[in-house]
């Protein structure tokens, strides 16, 4: 590096929170002795407006080009200091934050000398990294205003309309001849205490859509090809009627492919006897008025659901009652029995049970493990069931048997999974980025999901999801770009062997083949977890701001003195760092041996980081990530756990005791757990 490195170190007293336990003037003097340090100073409250201005002045006056702030925790205050240096024209990626409050003064309150010593070590590590910091930049990828919606059901139509209102161009692809999806096969929908025709709902939506010239509808059409990433999807649609192909580009994709009924072939005489139908088939019969005069109807719920194959279908209980009422409307004298396992009616849906009871529809609960059976005798059909309430078996004559079956994702799921590089669960429903906080997103930016393609649900919920997915898609289209933090992967093509490990393992699909054996990082899609860098067999992948060089420099700085008494800890930014901070806030006192190095994800920690620490004589190494199953990078902690298992095995071959490598999975509320790990390590490693 030809540039003259001038590091400025700014140590905060945090009132007496740091200064009361750490000898700050001594730390400042020590910092001045470190290599590359051009300036060091302290302030009472570094985050106060006057102190921030003073930092800016000091940077300018002393020609500082790397900044180390030693204060509270980067999880809350790093953005503030980054903004401060940015304001005077210094690249914010040239700042390193060192946590000496949560990691030293608060947790070693009774031993000021030790707290001071540790603060010095932490600052030395920070300075070592700072000297190697390089400018980074937020990476922007342009996003235009064209969206594709796969599936023209109610969810797809609602999403399309919501996007069109904002002026975006929308294409809807629908496989069937007309828009409407599953609603076209359904007679009526229950709203509060009444039923309304689903055809009316579809009609109203289609009319609304027609008002927008910026919505283009392809019916009777399938997607032949679809590939790319946000801002850059290429789609080819084939119209089935004339085999005409149209290709166009879109920036975002909303998947609204819906669901289908699982046909219970071979069960309950389904497929053998035309008197046994599914709920959707019954809807069709009711709609077309094709039901002959019937007297005895038996409805069996939870057919092939709530078992090892399928979960609760969410809607079956309600549908069975609604359709029982519909049959009653046509055939007033029909006797209807609903056989059920459990009544899963949520919110105030229960009111429909009252209506059914008033209409003399009978409910019989059968045990989970004892499903009803169908008996045929000279052409007559009956259902034998066990009634838990009466505690005995009985038979019901039936001239129509309706099976409430499970649902699964649409048959197009496999094709779309491949095209968009997304995944689905065993039931064929698409897998969202995060079940709680990212329900409408896929892990990759630019592609979203909604409606029954995600899981079975009622019309209102599907509509809300469609609106929500439209919002998610609108954000990058409205901004005109997506922006990624500068912490991203970078591949050195002179080292790369083209093995493809990074392409296959990236949880965000951010590494693509630019050409054969030539992986390319789509930087705007990269979240910077570092999984690829740690796994790369050729060391060809680096993470900006968390490079191997920088991490190893911290390890080396930490272990320069007294290595045999020290533990090197690698902690993930999101959860384990949260636990460390909480241990600090809670003033949990624990042994001071560990010097912590922050990485974005535990998956960033590679074998060589661990080996290096042991080579330099570290007493122990700790790798801390998020508590399972939480991970801010989807699978990072799982990958880290596996990798560290491998590292443990190879450590003994290299003559190191594998028991000196510890892993720990802490949630951000696990302050006590982290403190205990530190105590246990100190004890087991005889660091007393």
């Amino acid at each position, binding site marked *: 590096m030809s540039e003259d490195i001038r590091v400025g170190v700014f140590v905060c007293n945090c009132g007496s929170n740091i200064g009361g336990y750490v000898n700050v003037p001594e730390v400042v003097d020590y910092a001045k002795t470190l290599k590359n340090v051009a300036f060091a100073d302290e302030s009472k409250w570094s985050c106060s407006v006057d102190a921030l201005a003073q930092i800016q002045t000091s940077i300018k006056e002393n020609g500082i080009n790397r900044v180390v702030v030693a204060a509270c925790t980067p999880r809350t205050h790093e*953005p503030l200091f980054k903004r401060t240096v940015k304001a005077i024209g210094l690249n914010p990626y040239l700042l390193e934050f060192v946590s000496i409050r949560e990691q030293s003064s608060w947790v070693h309150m009774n031993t000021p000398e030790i707290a001071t010593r540790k603060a010095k070590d932490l600052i030395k590590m920070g300075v070592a990294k700072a000297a190697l910091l390089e400018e980074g930049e937020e990476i922007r990828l342009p996003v235009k205003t064209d969206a594709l919606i796969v599936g023209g059901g109610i969810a797809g139509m609602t999403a399309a309309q919501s996007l069109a209102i904002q002026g975006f161009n929308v294409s809807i692809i629908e496989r069937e001849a007309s828009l409407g999806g599953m609603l076209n096969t359904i007679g009526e929908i229950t709203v509060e205490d009444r039923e309304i025709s689903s055809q009316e709902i579809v009609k109203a939506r289609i009319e609304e859509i027609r008002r927008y010239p910026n919505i283009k509808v392809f019916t009777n059409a399938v997607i032949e090809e679809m590939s790319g990433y946000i801002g850059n999807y290429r789609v080819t649609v084939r119209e089935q009627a004339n085999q005409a192909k149209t290709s166009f580009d879109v920036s975002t994709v909303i998947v609204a492919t819906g669901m289908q009924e699982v046909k219970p072939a071979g069960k309950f005489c389904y497929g053998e006897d035309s008197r046994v139908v599914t709920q959707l088939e019954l809807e069709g019969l009711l709609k077309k008025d094709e039901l002959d005069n019937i007297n005895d109807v038996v409805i069996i719920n939870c057919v092939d659901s709530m078992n090892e194959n399928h*979960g609760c279908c969410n809607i079956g209980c309600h549908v069975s009652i609604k359709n029982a009422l519909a049959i009653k409307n046509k055939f007033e004298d029909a006797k209807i029995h609903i056989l059920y396992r459990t009544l899963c009616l949520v919110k105030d849906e229960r009111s429909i049970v009252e209506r059914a009871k008033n209409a003399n529809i009978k409910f019989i609960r059968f045990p989970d493990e004892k499903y009803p059976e169908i008996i045929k005798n000279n052409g007559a059909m009956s259902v034998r069931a066990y009634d838990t309430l009466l505690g005995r078996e009985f038979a019901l004559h039936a001239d129509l048997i309706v099976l409430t079956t499970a649902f699964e994702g649409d048959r197009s799921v496999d094709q779309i999974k491949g095209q968009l590089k997304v995944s689905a669960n065993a039931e064929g429903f698409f897998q969202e980025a995060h079940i709680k906080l990212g329900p409408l997103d896929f892990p990759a930016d630019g592609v979203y999901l909604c409606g029954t393609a995600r899981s079975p649900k009622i019309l209102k919920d599907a509509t809300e999801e469609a609106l929500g997915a439209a919002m998610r898609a609108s954000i990058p289209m409205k901004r005109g770009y997506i922006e990624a933090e500068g912490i991203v992967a970078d591949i050195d093509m002179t080292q790369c062997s083209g093995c493809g490990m990074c392409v296959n393992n990236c949880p965000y699909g951010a590494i693509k083949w630019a050409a054969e054996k030539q992986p390319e990082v789509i930087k705007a899609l990269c979240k910077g977890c570092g999984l690829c860098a740690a796994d790369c067999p050729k060391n060809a992948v680096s993470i900006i701001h968390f490079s191997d060089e920088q991490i190893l420099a911290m390890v080396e700085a930490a272990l320069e003195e007294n290595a045999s008494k020290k533990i090197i800890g690698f902690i993930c930014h999101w959860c384990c760092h949260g636990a460390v901070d909480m241990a600090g806030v809670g003033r949990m006192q624990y042994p001071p041996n560990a010097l912590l190095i922050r990485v974005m994800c535990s998956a960033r920690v590679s074998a060589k980081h661990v080996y290096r620490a042991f080579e330099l004589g570290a007493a122990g190494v700790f790798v801390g990530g998020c508590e399972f199953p939480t991970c801010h990078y989807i699978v990072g902690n799982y990958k880290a756990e596996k990798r560290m298992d491998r590292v443990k095995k190879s450590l003994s071959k290299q003559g190191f005791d594998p028991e000196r490598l510890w892993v720990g999975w802490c949630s951000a509320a696990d302050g006590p757990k982290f403190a205990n790990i530190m105590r246990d390590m100190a004890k087991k490693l005889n660091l007393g």
Partner: protein
Amino acid sequence: MAGIHVALNAAEYGTMVYLIDDTASIGGIMARLDKTFPTNDCSICIEAPRMYEVDNNEHIKILTNTEVRRITRKNGVFVVRLVKKAKFIDEDKCTGCGACTQACPITVPDGMDGKIGGTKKLISIPFPQAVPSAVAVDKRCRNGKMRADGACIGGCVVDCSQCRECPIALCVKACIKEGKDAVRLWQADTQMDIEVKSIVVASGLNPDEPEDGQYGYNVYQNVITNLQFERLMNAGGPTGGDIIRPSDNKHPKKIAWIQCVGRGLRDGGVHYCSKVCCMIAAKQTIITKEHGPDVETIVFYNDLKAYGKGFWGFYSKAVEHGVKYVRARPYDVREDERTGNLFVKYEDLDTGELKEEEVELLVLSMGLISGDRNAKLARTLGLKLDGYGFFKEKDALMRPLETNVEGIYLCGGATGPIDISESVIQASAAALKAVSNNAEVAK
């Protein structure tokens, strides 16, 4: 969570957002939970980063301890009169360092954690990850109501607004010693007007409280609600995640859950299914089993609501962990005074038999009810409520989340019992309505 999510979505879209919360920190009920079903993700771990994101987003202005007093409409714009209630803290100066909390001499039971040993000081931060990261002074202390308990504030003859430099209050002294001087005992409520194009109501809901005596609640010490149990499990809760019972701080070896408490079984109860309680119980039993595999866990339930994605698998996991599910209607709870254990009498709904079970801790799974601020807020905003006190949608099917007032939208617990993912979905949807309303008004 719903409000945070609306704010983030709308701000990322490019819209200016005011996030109004009438408590001292954003975060809502989720910040109090331990884990979330059906994945057992740590609740605050996934919520706190979003809270910091809100805090750092230049398009979002957070106003805590703030209430909406009235709204008027002028040229398609809502003029909203806000009242920021005094926290007696200068939020810009406070760094949440906690020196004042350590100096405060008075410890009081902390809201819902009180029964299970949760305490707080009269000046404290709402929870460690609070945003804004600032303390608040208990109003009772400031108003002199805690004087008899030994509080330092309130014994002074001089009005704080006249004096402005407290020689008595230990928190003021501690703060000045830290060089901050952020405690402002003379702070008054302040009013302000803001102008907005759309309003999203994400005012949340409340967990129902059992009546005194219901299944022995507030009569027997070892009967607690599921929310209190959640706090027991929480590493950030009053026991540091140790599941101990209130009477003797022992680890209970046998715990029972009673589902559907307060629901429809008698007058005045919650007449609808709150839908999330079954999964909350599954979550709590699984975590209990993970804390101590030898702890016996029994769930007395009626119908199983495993309605959502992954919920059935989650219930199955509980069963695999050895959780006993009994379809039952408990009708009586008696305490053994000697041991503090509880005898639960119930009717086994599968066999019709009357049975009894002795447990060491009893958890009541409470339904979710409408927020206590809904009635007032509805009056202020001119919105309609449904029969249960939740905000009413104008046309639930064709125009979900819209209200009888154009430009005001709903999401989350304001609409009814709801889980976190549904809240997040509605939040995105409501944000869309809010920003597109903006667009149309702008035209």
